[in-house]
Every structure is written in structure tokens, then in C-alpha cells.
């Protein structure tokens, strides 16, 4: 164990001892294990940690990160739901302070941090500073031993997605480190095949898709002469690669396989583990049983509370006591309706209620309430009510239970209340208050520590308790005598004291310890989970194949879904399920739907924790995709698909499923759940490509607005909706534009901004009507802008843009493409002030739509306008705005062209060092092959050379520009380059050459629109310089 010391200053910690000169408080040495189950040791003794899972998760997060966090950030991380997250955080910190010490846990009004000081934290020690290849073998082995399980094992919190993402990333990092260490150990032990094999097998378990790990196992098994196992390994590798990566094993794996003599495979022999059979006996619990009997007994003397509530730690016997209660009710001819919440089903609103109500026959449902119940139980015949609300639904459920109880004594059992969703808890409150104490009995159970983390369920229970409607039974551990009775029933001499000591009176734990002792196991580390893990390890191969899938599916699972997801053959599936049932890992589901339940959620957790993160992800992904293939007209499975797809890393499937699940929540009036689903869905939508992202973000925001929850930051929501709608416009997603304006309308109506709401609704109507018109405008504008940017067919560009502008104005649609195109045409005609105004307008619209590219084009053209007007200082000002925008464009010409224009502007301003920057910019433009931009810059430089009386340099640059402009068909730049060559030639004394050059472009002057105004002026200026008469013809016509 790794230990070090530091001295927390808590008032009650440590003892006084003398050191020379003064008394000091001696503090315990503190060690924290975060790999595997979280443990804290004071002076090597384990400290009892808070039961609250979130508090332990907070401990793990603070210690692992060991830096300062704002309280706000921690609240968002773990307590996004409760009404007072800061209070929940304060409570948790109070619990952690004595564990981590005053010096370890440092808090102020806004910040919380963990300072490790001299405390020993395993993940900090594991963090390797050296390459495994240069680490001594003993150190590597010690590091390898530090990996006792997953990081923060058992502290997954799928509903706190920010924390969960951090957790998964940390696990990934540690896993990668572990893989490197094992790979190095395998190579170090290549001369000791048995040891290398152990490490190689571990590597396969860590990453089943790592083909090289399978190959190592095969090679080592082959070298040990265990050919059958080697070939089994090959089969397993081949199946995994085929199923997950759609490929076959590589050459190296095939080579190893061929080197091993193939022998036919025999089925692996099944080993039967020693287990206890038959239902667990009810031992002790006499006072509680008497209370139950009194509660069930009607009439005088019986208890009058509407609801019985059993709490206690996992495995203490809550479900067993509920079963005893059910037997009492059945003995009186009563019926039992059972529903249970599951941790993964926090997103299946009313899940426990739906399961319970389905036990009532369809023909027993009174016709009057059928329409209202159909939203919850879609299998009921007849139409659903048109305008129901939540109260109507609650009334209908209460009415159904009342009518069932009129016929016979009815016990409604709701198990694991700590995992109830908000809607289920609200319905429980309603039903319990509405129930007339008589033939309807309600019994609930919950894990006491975790109930406090579910604010809604906890509030409901405490509210009913204050109204004296609850008979609360708190189950304590069994006494030694009771444990003696428990083990005596097992029929063999089991040392009860040992069982009592190991299990601390927890009956489930006691039974597992007894079973282990019966099997002869004596070396388990003492946790309930280690006993369960050992039991799972002893299962036969078919059961072991089925178990991970079942554990990933949840406590309650459908074998058909399992078969679909896992692709396991029916024969193996049946045999695996039978074996799991025989060994009391699972049992047939209570709802009678043909499904199975794990005998206890602790068992499922043990099975789940045996898997590494990549394996879990793979399983969840396959489950999500299998569920998505199931015919599900009422979206009842959407929440589960979203859950598994999120854990499996398929963001597109997850985001779509969150939308579907959110819409279903709205249909059944589960607003809080819908809002929760939206937050989770947005996390996934943001990872998608633009069209998918915009559509899904809008759909999720729509659900949020309709959920009826308090909107925390309405300004941000308004901004997000506007941004998305404009993005949808930019992308030409007509239907999404309509949706965006529609949601904005609904949102503003809810906020009481009726005038704005009306405007948005009108815009939605316009957008809907003009969907085709918008597309037409966009096409016209795009075609016009393209031509204008290239400087080709300017009359056509102008006509297209004019038409686009008129149509856009008619439907009140704005597109940056239109003013951009018009600005480019005006630029062509040398109307610089008009072009500046148009380009500024386009820039504004592009910014609104976060259209970086069009923004860049506008700014580049504005820089060009300044340069062409001989204003390099103003051009430099524009460049400063352009610079950061162009940097966002990634690889492209915008950044290099902007830098070239900036360097030329600096050169024209006479700034030192500009010449060097110009050459460097030219070199970059050449390397990225952007001929048109390069030609433009070379012309500017050649003109500057002429002004600076460097005609030869001007000539060389202009000649290069001629070649470049020709290659890309830039007419105006070609003409200017030729005119500049002519002037340079004349300046060098070659008048004949100048005239020859000019003649090639003189004829182009006859068409007023063919060349830009600047090109025409350049030709005219050169012609007069070399003495050529310019033919009279049309003057530059700037109108368009």
C-alpha cells in the first residue's frame, strides 16, 4: 500500500505528541485509492466513506484533479437537477472535510480545491513520467499491480453527463497507460511464455479489438503446445474483427494460425460452480413482520397509514420483506401490482408505474378513463383524449387503482424509489394522497443513502411522512444470532461467527460468504462484490458469454433484445440463460413479460464492473443499434436507445433518440424529464456535422421550450435560437428555418413578449410559404456572386443579382450573398464608395450567420478598394480586422492572401522589413497554387516598382502576372498586367515591345463591361505613355 503523511488541522483528528520545543497535533497519514473502488486510509486503516454516490464521486473528482474548481462548476458537474445545487455541494463538502482533512480540502466562498500535500494518491503515483521502455521491470510490475479495477469503480453517474464524460476520459487515459505497461511486460517476459501469456490475456480483455494482443496470445499458446486454445483464440479474434470492424484478421495473425497445427475444436467443458439453491429464507425481522401484518389487517387495531416505506442498505432484505408482505396480501386473496425503477431508466418516465399497471387486465380498465390512460398504456383500445393534461392522467391512474381495489385487496409494490424519475415520484404523491385507506395498499422501498440524492422522490416521501401517511420501516443489519439462523438453514456446518464478521450482518452478503465457504474459497478480500465476482467467474462458458450483455442491458432485460444485439445463437442463449437462472444470477421477470431480472442490482453491478470501458462501449453500441431496429411506434424504447447510444459513443443515434424520447415525455406530461433529455441530447448534437447539428439542436430546443420547466437563461436561449435559425438560412435548410422561427414565436409567447412572438410566428409562416422562393433567391445570388468574383460575364452577374435582390425583398429574406455580389460588380465598375457600402452590409450579414468565408471575401475586397485608391494606411487598418477572421479559415488561400495584402500595404507605407515579408508572402502564394491572387499582388508590386523607377523589376513581376492571369482566365488582371509590362518596357527604352504588348489588349476596350474600370484605365494610361491613340468607344458604364 502506498502511504505518505501530511497534517490536516481538524480539531478532533490526531493526538498530541511532543517534539523538541513545542507541542504539535499529530495527524494521521492519508492514502487515497481511486483505481478500483474508492478507498481512503488514515494511518493505514480504512475510513468509512459517505454512502452518497455523488459525494464519493465528488471526492474522486477533487482528489484526481487536485486543482481549484469554482463551486458553480462543481454544481454543474454533479447537481444540475436539484433546486438548490449549492446546498447539495455544501452538504457533500461537510462530509468530505473530516476524510480529506482541513489542509487537504481547501474551500472559500467561490472555490473548492484539494491539496494533496504529502498524502498518497494512487493515480498521482501511477502517472508515469518515464517511457515504459526505460522503466525497470520491478517498477513496471508494481505499477501493473496498482490497476485493481476501473478508475472510480462503481461511481458512474450517467445522469450527470459532464462528470460522466470526464470519468470516461480518465478511464481511457489510465487504460492506455495500462496497455503500454502490459505490452512492455509481454516483451520483457518473452522468454517466460507462461508469464507473457498472463499479460497477453489481460491485454485482450482490456481491448478485445486489438488484433496484436490476440496474436500474442495465439503465439504464446502455440509455443506452449496448447494448440486448441490458440485456435479458439483465433476464432474469437476473427469473430470480433468481423462483427465490429467488418474485416478479417491480418497477415501476421494468419501466419501464426498457419504455424499452429489445426485440430478440430471441441466444445469447452462446462464447470458447475457450487451455489445455494432455493429462495433466501426470511430470518429475523420479527418486529417489522408484525408491523406489516398489522398494516395489512383491515378494521380496528390495524395501522392506518396509506403507504409503507422500507429503507436500508443494498442487500439488507428490503425486497425480501416486500415479498413477505406480498405473501400476506395473497393469503387474503389480494393481488399484487409490482413496479421497479432502474438506475439506467431515469429517462423512462413512469417506467415503474407502467410495469405495475400492466398487471391489471385490459378489460378491467373502466371505459371512461381509457382515453386518458392510453398515453401511458398505448396497448389499450380506443382513441387517446384530445386535450389531456397531467392532472387528468394522474386522476385516471388513481381511478384505475381505485377500481381495481374495489374488486379485491390490491397491493401496489414500488421498489427502488431512489431511482424514480420526477414524473413517477409526482404520481406517487398524487396517488398516495388520493387513495382512500381501504383495499388499496402501497408499499415502497429505497436505499436510504441514495434516496437523499433524488430530490423529487425524497421530497415526496418526506411530505407524505409529515402528513402521517407513511409507516416507515428502517432495516438494520442482522444480529449474530439471526446470522446463525440464516446459515443453519443451509444445512451444513458453516462458521456463523466468521460469516457474521465478514458480512457485518448484511443477509445478501452473509449468503454469499456462506456459499464461498461451502465451495472451499477462503481467500477473498472481504467485499460483497468480490464474492459475487468470484461466483460469476465460476460460471460455464455459455453463461459467461451471456452475462456481459445482460449486465449492460440493465437489471431487467429482454432475451430477444439480448439475442439481437449480441448475435448469440439461440442454443447458446437458452443454455446460458438456464445456467444463470440455475446459479441464481438472474430470475424470470416479475412483470410476466418474458424478460429476466438480475436477482439483485448488486449482482448486475458486479457483472458490469468486470468489463473494461472499451468492452462496455462496444456492448452498449450494439444494444443501441439492436434496439433501434425494433418496431416501436410509440417510442417507448427511445430513452433506452439514447442511453445505450450515448454510452456506446454513437452521437447521431443518441441525439435522434433523445429527440424521440423527449417528444414522448411531452406526450405523457413528464416535462422535467424532457428538459433533462434535451440537455443530454445537446451534448451529442453539438458533435455532428452542420445540417444534422442544426436540425437536432432546433428539435431539442423545441422540446425544451414546450417542456414547461423554468427557463434558467432565457437570453441565451433566445440567442441560440436566433443563431440556429440564421445558420439554417445560410445552409438553405428551409424546413429548419420555419422550425426556428416557430420555436422563437412559442418561446416569446411563453415569456410574455407577445408582440415579438407574433412577429416570429409571421416569419415562420412567410418562411414556410417562401421555402421554394428562398431556394430560388439563394441560387440566383450564388450564381451571380460566383461570376462577379471571377470578373466574368458581368452583365449576367448583374442581372442575376438584381433579380435575386428583388425576389429577396418581396419575401423579406436576407442573404449576404446578394450585397456581396453587388459589391463585387460595383468594384468591377470602379464605384468604390458604393462597393464599400455593399460589402460592409454583406460583412454584417455574414457575421450574423457566422459565415467566416464570406466575411473574409468582403474584408479582402475592402482592403483591395483601399489599395486601389492609393490609401495603404486605411488598407492596413482593414487588414487588422481581416487577420483574425482569415486565421479561422484553416488551410486555404484566405490567410496567405490577407498576409500578402498586408505586406504590400506595409511596403507602400514605407514600413521597415516589409520587403522581406512581401517576398515571403509571394513564396507562400506560389506554394499553395493560387494563381489569381498571386497575379493581383504581383501587379500591385509592379506598379509600385514603376513608381519607384525600378522598371526591370516591374517588368519581371508583370510578366509573371500575365502568365498567371492567363492560366486562370482573369481578364481584367491579364489586361492590367499586359499594360504594366508595356509601361515597364517603355521605361526600359523598348517602345516597340511596349506597343506590341499593348495591341493584344486594345481591342478589349470596345466592350464597356468586358474589363474592369481599373483595367481600362491602366490600358489607356499605358497607351498614352507609348503614344498609341485610344480608339473612341463606349465609356465605362457603371450602371447595372
Amino acid at each position: 500500500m502506498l502511504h505518505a503523511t501530511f497534517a490536516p488541522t481538524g480539531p478532533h483528528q490526531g493526538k498530541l505528541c511532543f517534539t523538541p520545543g513545542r507541542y504539535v497535533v499529530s495527524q494521521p497519514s492519508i492514502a487515497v485509492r481511486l483505481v478500483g473502488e474508492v478507498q481512503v486510509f488514515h494511518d493505514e486503516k480504512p475510513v468509512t466513506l459517505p454512502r452518497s454516490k455523488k459525494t464519493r464521486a465528488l471526492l474522486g473528482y477533487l482528489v484526481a484533479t487536485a486543482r481549484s474548481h469554482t463551486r458553480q462548476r462543481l454544481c454543474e458537474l454533479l447537481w444540475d437537477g436539484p433546486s438548490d445545487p449549492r446546498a447539495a455541494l455544501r452538504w457533500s463538502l461537510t462530509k468530505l472535510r473530516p476524510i480529506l482533512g482541513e489542509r487537504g480540502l481547501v474551500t472559500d466562498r467561490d472555490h473548492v480545491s484539494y491539496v494533496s500535500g504529502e498524502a498518497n494518491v494512487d493515480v498521482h503515483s501511477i502517472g508515469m513520467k518515464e517511457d515504459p521502455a526505460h522503466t525497470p521491470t520491478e517498477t513496471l510490475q508494481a505499477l501493473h499491480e496498482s490497476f485493481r479495477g476501473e478508475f472510480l469503480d462503481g461511481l458512474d453517474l450517467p445522469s450527470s453527463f459532464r462528470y460522466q464524460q470526464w470519468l470516461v476520459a480518465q478511464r481511457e487515459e489510465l487504460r492506455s497507460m495500462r496497455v503500454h505497461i502490459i505490452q512492455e511486460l509481454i516483451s520483457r517476459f518473452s522468454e517466460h511464455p507462461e508469464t507473457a501469456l498472463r499479460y497477453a490475456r489481460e491485454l485482450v480483455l482490456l481491448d478485445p479489438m486489438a488484433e496484436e494482443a490476440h496474436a500474442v496470445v495465439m503465439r504464446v499458446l502455440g509455443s506452449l503446445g496448447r494448440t486448441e486454445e490458440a485456435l479458439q483464440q483465433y476464432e474469437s479474434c476473427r469473430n470480433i474483427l468481423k462483427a465490429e470492424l467488418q474485416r478479417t484478421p491480418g497477415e501476421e495473425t494468419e501466419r501464426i494460425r498457419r504455424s499452429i497445427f489445426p485440430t478440430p475444436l471441441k466444445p469447452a467443458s462446462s464447470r458447475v460452480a457450487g451455489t445455494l439453491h432455493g429462495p433466501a429464507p426470511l430470518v429475523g425481522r420479527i418486529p417489522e413482520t408484525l408491523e406489516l401484518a398489522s398494516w395489512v389487517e383491515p378494521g380496528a387495531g390495524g395501522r392506518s397509514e396509506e403507504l409503507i416505506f422500507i429503507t436500508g442498505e443494498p442487500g439488507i432484505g428490503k425486497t425480501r420483506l416486500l415479498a413477505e408482505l406480498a405473501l400476506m396480501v395473497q393469503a387474503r386473496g389480494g393481488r399484487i401490482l409490482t413496479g421497479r425503477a432502474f438506475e439506467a431508466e431515469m429517462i423512462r418516465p413512469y417506467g415503474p408505474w407502467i410495469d405495475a399497471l400492466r398487471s391489471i387486465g385490459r378489460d378491467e380498465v373502466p371505459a371512461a378513463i381509457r382515453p386518458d390512460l392510453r398515453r401511458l398504456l398505448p396497448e389499450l383500445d380506443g382513441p387517446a383524449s384530445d386535450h389531456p393534461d397531467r392532472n387528468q392522467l394522474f386522476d385516471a391512474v388513481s381511478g384505475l387503482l381505485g377500481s381495481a381495489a374495489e374488486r379485491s385487496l390490491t397491493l401496489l409494490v414500488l421498489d427502488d424509489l431512489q431511482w424514480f424519475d420526477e414524473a413517477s415520484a409526482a404520481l406517487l404523491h398524487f396517488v398516495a394522497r388520493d387513495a382512500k385507506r381501504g383495499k388499496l395498499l402501497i408499499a415502497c422501498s429505497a436505499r436510504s443513502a441514495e434516496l437523499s440524492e433524488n430530490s423529487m422522490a425524497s421530497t415526496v416521501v418526506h411530505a407524505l411522512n409529515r402528513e402521517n401517511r407513511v409507516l416507515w420501516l428502517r432495516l438494520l443489519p442482522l444480529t449474530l444470532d439471526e446470522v446463525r439462523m440464516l446459515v443453519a438453514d443451509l444445512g451444513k456446518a458453516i462458521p456463523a461467527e466468521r460469516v457474521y464478521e465478514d458480512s457485518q450482518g448484511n443477509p445478501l452478503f452473509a449468503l454469499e460468504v456462506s456459499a464461498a465457504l461451502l465451495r472451499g474459497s477462503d481467500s477473498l478480500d472481504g467485499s460483497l462484490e468480490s464474492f459475487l465476482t468470484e461466483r460469476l467467474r465460476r460460471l460455464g462458458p455459455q453463461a459467461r458469454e451471456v452475462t456481459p450483455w445482460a449486465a449492460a442491458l440493465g437489471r431487467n432485460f429482454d432475451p430477444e433484445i439480448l439475442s439481437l444485439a449480441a448475435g448469440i445463437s439461440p442454443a447458446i442463449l437458452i443454455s446460458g440463460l438456464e445456467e444463470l437462472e440455475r446459479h441464481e444470477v438472474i430470475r424470470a421477470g416479475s412483470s410476466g413479460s418474458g424478460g429476466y431480472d438480475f436477482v439483485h442490482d448488486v449482482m448486475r453491478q458486479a457483472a458490469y464492473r468486470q468489463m473494461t470501458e472499451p468492452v462496455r462501449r462496444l456492448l452498449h453500441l450494439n444494444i443501441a443499434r439492436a434496439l433501434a431496429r425494433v418496431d416501436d411506434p410509440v417510442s417507448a424504447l427511445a430513452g433506452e436507445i439514447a442511453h445505450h447510444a450515448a454510452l456506446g459513443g454513437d452521437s447521431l443515434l443518441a441525439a435522434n433518440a433523445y429527440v424521440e424520447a423527449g417528444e414522448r415525455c411531452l406526450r405523457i406530461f413528464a416535462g422535467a424529464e424532457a428538459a433533462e433529455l434535451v440537455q443530454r441530447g445537446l451534448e451529442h448534437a453539438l458533435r455532428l456535422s452542420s445540417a444534422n447539428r442544426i436540425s437536432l439542436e432546433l428539435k431539442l430546443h423545441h422540446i425544451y421550450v414546450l417542456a414547461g420547466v423554468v427557463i434558467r437563461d432565457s437570453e441565451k436561449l433566445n440567442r441560440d435560437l436566433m443563431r440556429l435559425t440564421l445558420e439554417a438560412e445560410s445552409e438553405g435548410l428551409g424546413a429548419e428555418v420555419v422550425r426556428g422561427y416557430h420555436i422563437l414565436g412559442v418561446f416569446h409567447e411563453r415569456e410574455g413578449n407577445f408582440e415579438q412572438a407574433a412577429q416570429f410566428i409571421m416569419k415562420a409562416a412567410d418562411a414556410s410559404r417562401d421555402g421554394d422562393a428562398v431556394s430560388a433567391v439563394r441560387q440566383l445570388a450564388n450564381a451571380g456572386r460566383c461570376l462577379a468574383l471571377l470578373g466574368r460575364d458581368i452583365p449576367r452577374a448583374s442581372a442575376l443579382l438584381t433579380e435575386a435582390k428583388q425576389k429577396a425583398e418581396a419575401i423579406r429574406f436576407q442573404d449576404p450573398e446578394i450585397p456581396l455580389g453587388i459589391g463585387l460588380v460595383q468594384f468591377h465598375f470602379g464605384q468604390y464608395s458604393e462597393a464599400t457600402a455593399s460589402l460592409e452590409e454583406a460583412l454584417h450579414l455574414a457575421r450574423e450567420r457566422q459565415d467566416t468565408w464570406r466575411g473574409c471575401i468582403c474584408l479582402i475586397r475592402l482592403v483591395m478598394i483601399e489599395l486601389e485608391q492609393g490609401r495603404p494606411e486605411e488598407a492596413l487598418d482593414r487588414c487588422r480586422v481581416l487577420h483574425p477572421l482569415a486565421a479561422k479559415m484553416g488551410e486555404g488561400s484566405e490567410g496567405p492572401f490577407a498576409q500578402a495584402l498586408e505586406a504590400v500595404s506595409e511596403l507602400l507605407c514605407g514600413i521597415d522589413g516589409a520587403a522581406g515579408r512581401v517576398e515571403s508572402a509571394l513564396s507562400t502564394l506560389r506554394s499553395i497554387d493560387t494563381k489569381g491572387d498571386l497575379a493581383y499582388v504581383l501587379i500591385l508590386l509592379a506598379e509600385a516598382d514603376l513608381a519607384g523607377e525600378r522598371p526591370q523589376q516591374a517588368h519581371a513581376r508583370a510578366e509573371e502576372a500575365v502568365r498567371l492571369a492567363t492560366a486562370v482566365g482573369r481578364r481584367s488582371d491579364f489586361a492590367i498586367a499586359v499594360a504594366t509590362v508595356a509601361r515597364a518596357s517603355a521605361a526600359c527604352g523598348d517602345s516597340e515591345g511596349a506597343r506590341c504588348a499593348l495591341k493584344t489588349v486594345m481591342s478589349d476596350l470596345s466592350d464597356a463591361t468586358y474589363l474592369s474600370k481599373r483595367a481600362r484605365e491602366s490600358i489607356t494610361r499605358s497607351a498614352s505613355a507609348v503614344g498609341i491613340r485610344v480608339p473612341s468607344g463606349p465609356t465605362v458604364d457603371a450602371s447595372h
Partner: protein
Amino acid sequence: MANLIVETSYSQPLDDATHDRLAAQLDPCLEAYGARWLRSYLSTDRLRMVCEFEAPDAEMVRMSYRSAGIDFERVWTAEVYARSA
């Protein structure tokens, strides 16, 4: 005319419908800028694509992509080396 290579990658596998939509957006822009698509290679996991074009320069292809609103990772001019027949 130069040979141009465009490299693109996708966060989600590129499905056929998205591919068709992108192609429909890009084709008119390529035509306007004088670029011609020659062929594409889509990775089997559909997360990466390399496209080959013929165009006056790399910028014409970049402008086509930008105009169509399609992201790319890099565009470069290439010399073709091929086995002689």
C-alpha cells in the same frame, strides 16, 4: 490544367444521402469555377475521403468548396505518377 487533390474527413460515417446532397451542392460551383471532378476514394469506414479534380489552379477548387459551404481539410496540386502501360 493541374491535378488537384482534396482531403476531407467526417466525424460521422458519410451516408449516401449526405454524399449525394454534398455532390449536388458542389457540382454547380465546380462548373462555375472551371474545375472538373475526376474521381474520389471513400475510406471503408466512411470517415475520410480523397477527391481528385482537374482545374486551372488549387484556388478554383477551394473556391468551389467554400462557395458550396463544404468543409475540407486541405487542397493541394499534384503530379501524377502512374505505371506505364
